[in-house]
C-alpha cells in the first residue's frame, strides 16, 4: 500500500546534502523553490517534485484513491541514502557548471549503457576525484547520463586512452532498453 506524505526536515537534509555534495551545487533550496517535495512511500521511497496546484488536487483525490505517481520523479531514498534519477539529473543539470563532456564515440557508448574509456571523454572536470559522480553531456550540452569516476583527475592524466575511467550509473538509453 502506497503512502504519500510531505518530506520531513531530516529527509530534506539527506536529499539536499547528497545533491550539493555530488554536484557541487550551492543552493538546492532555490532550485526546488517552486515545488513541494512529496514522498511516495512503498517498497522504497520515491522523491517527487510537485507543483502547488497539483498538491491541491492530490489532497482532494487521496481521500478516494492514491495516485500511481505524479510530478517530477527526482530520485529514491533507499536505506537512508538518496539516489538521483534520470529526470533528477536533467532537472538540476542547468545549475551545474562542471560537467563531463563526451566525444561522439562516448555519446554512442553511454546510450547503450556502457562504461567509458578516456578516449570517450572530450572534457574531464579538473577537480574530479575517484568515486565522484558527474553529469555526462554531449558537445551540444545535452544531458545523456550520470557517471562515476574510477580515478582522480591527476591519475587519469597518466592513463592510456583505452583505460576505463567512468562507470555508467544511469543513462537515457534506459528509456529504450527498459522504459517500454
Amino acid at each position, binding site marked *: 500500500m502506497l503512502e504519500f506524505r510531505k518530506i520531513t526536515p531530516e529527509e530534506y537534509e539527506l536529499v539536499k546534502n547528497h545533491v550539493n555534495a555530488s554536484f557541487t551545487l550551492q543552493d538546492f533550496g532555490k532550485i526546488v523553490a517552486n515545488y513541494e517535495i512529496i514522498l511516495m512511500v512503498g517498497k522504497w521511497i520515491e522523491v517527487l*517534485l510537485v*507543483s502547488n*496546484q*497539483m498538491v491541491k*488536487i*492530490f489532497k*482532494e*483525490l487521496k*481521500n*478516494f*484513491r492514491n*495516485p*500511481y*505517481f*505524479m*510530478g*517530477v*520523479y527526482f530520485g529514491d531514498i533507499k536505506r537512508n541514502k538518496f539516489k538521483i534519477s*534520470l*529526470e533528477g539529473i*536533467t532537472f538540476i543539470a542547468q545549475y551545474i557548471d562542471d560537467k563531463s563532456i563526451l566525444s561522439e564515440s562516448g*555519446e554512442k557508448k553511454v*546510450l547503450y549503457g556502457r562504461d567509458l574509456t578516456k578516449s570517450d571523454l572530450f572534457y574531464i572536470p579538473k577537480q574530479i576525484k575517484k568515486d565522484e559522480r558527474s553529469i555526462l553531456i*554531449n558537445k551540444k550540452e*545535452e*544531458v*545523456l547520463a550520470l557517471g562515476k569516476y574510477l580515478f582522480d583527475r591527476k591519475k587519469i592524466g597518466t592513463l592510456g586512452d583505452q583505460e576505463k575511467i567512468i562507470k555508467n550509473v544511469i543513462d*537515457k*538509453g534506459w*528509456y*529504450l532498453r*527498459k*522504459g*517500454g
Partner: protein
Amino acid sequence: MGDQSNLVREFCNKYKYSPYMIERYVNLFGEERVKKFLDGNEQKILTTFKVNTLRINKDVLFNRLNAKGFELEPISVVPDAFYVKKAPFSIGATTEYLLGYYYIQSLSSMIPSLALNVSSHDIVVDMCSAPGGKTIHLAQLMKNQGVILAFELNRERMRSFRSNISRCGVQNVIAIRTDAANLPDLHIKGISKILLDAPCTGSGLIPVDPSRKTSRTFGDIKFCSSIQMKLMKAAVEGLERGGELVYSTCSIEPEENEYIINNVLQQFRLEVVDLDINFGEPGLTNVFGLELSPEVEKARRLYPYLHKTEGFFVCKLKKV
C-alpha cells in the same frame, strides 16, 4: 441483392476480410466508395511524429534529423509535426528521441489533444492515457502547467506511460491506475476539459495491422460500444458545467462513434461543438437505417484513402 453478395464475396477474396466487415462497409459507404476505402487500407501510411516543444524548437530538430539523413515534411493540419518520408534507420532510435525531443504518433492521434483547446490553468482529465502521446501533447499545449489527471488501468501500459512522459519532461501529470469509469467516484472539482480516447476495435488501424481484417467480430464491436458508453457517461458526470470533452476512437464503426455521441446527447445536457480543424469528413447522421441527431455531423471521420492516416473518429462536446 445477388449483386451485393457477389461483391462481398469478391472483396472478401481480394482483400481478405471477414465477410461481415465487407457487408457493413458496403452498406456504410456504398459500392463505389467501398473499393476506394479498401484499396486505401492496403496503402502504407507514413510514420509521423510530433515535436516536443517543451524540450526543443521545431526548426532546430528538423535540421538535426535532416543532417542524419531523415527526410521530413511538415504536417499542415498539426503544428510542430512531421511526416517521415525517408529514414536511414528507425526514427525511434536516435539520440534526439532519447532526449525526448519528439514522440512518434499517428497524425490522427494528434487531433484530439489539439481539438480540446486546453490552456495552462485547466484541470484536464486524460481518461485512457497510455502510451502517453496525447498526454505529452496536452502538457505541451498547457506549457507544463495546470494539472493533467491521467488514467490507465493496465500496469504494464502505465509503466510505459511513465517512461514516455518522463523522457519528454512532462511535469504536470497526476497518474491514477484505475478504470477511468470510476472518475465520478473520485469527486475531483473543477475538471474543465476531458479527453476520452476510448478503447475500441481498432478497425481504423487495418493499414498498420492487417490482422484486424479478421480478428474482430461483431460481438467485439458491441462489447467495445458498451465500454465506450460507460466511459462516456463517467466523463460527462465528472466534467464541470461549461467544460468540454473530446471523444475519439481509432475505429470507423458507427456503433463505437456516432451512436455513442447520439446516445449521450439524448441522455445528458450536451451540445456538439465544431472542431476548429479543417480536416476530415463529417460524422454520419443516417447510418444502417438509423437517423441520428444532425448535431453528430459536426464530428470528424478520417480515412486512410482520403487523409493518409489511420481510420479515426473525433467529436467535441460541451456540457451545458
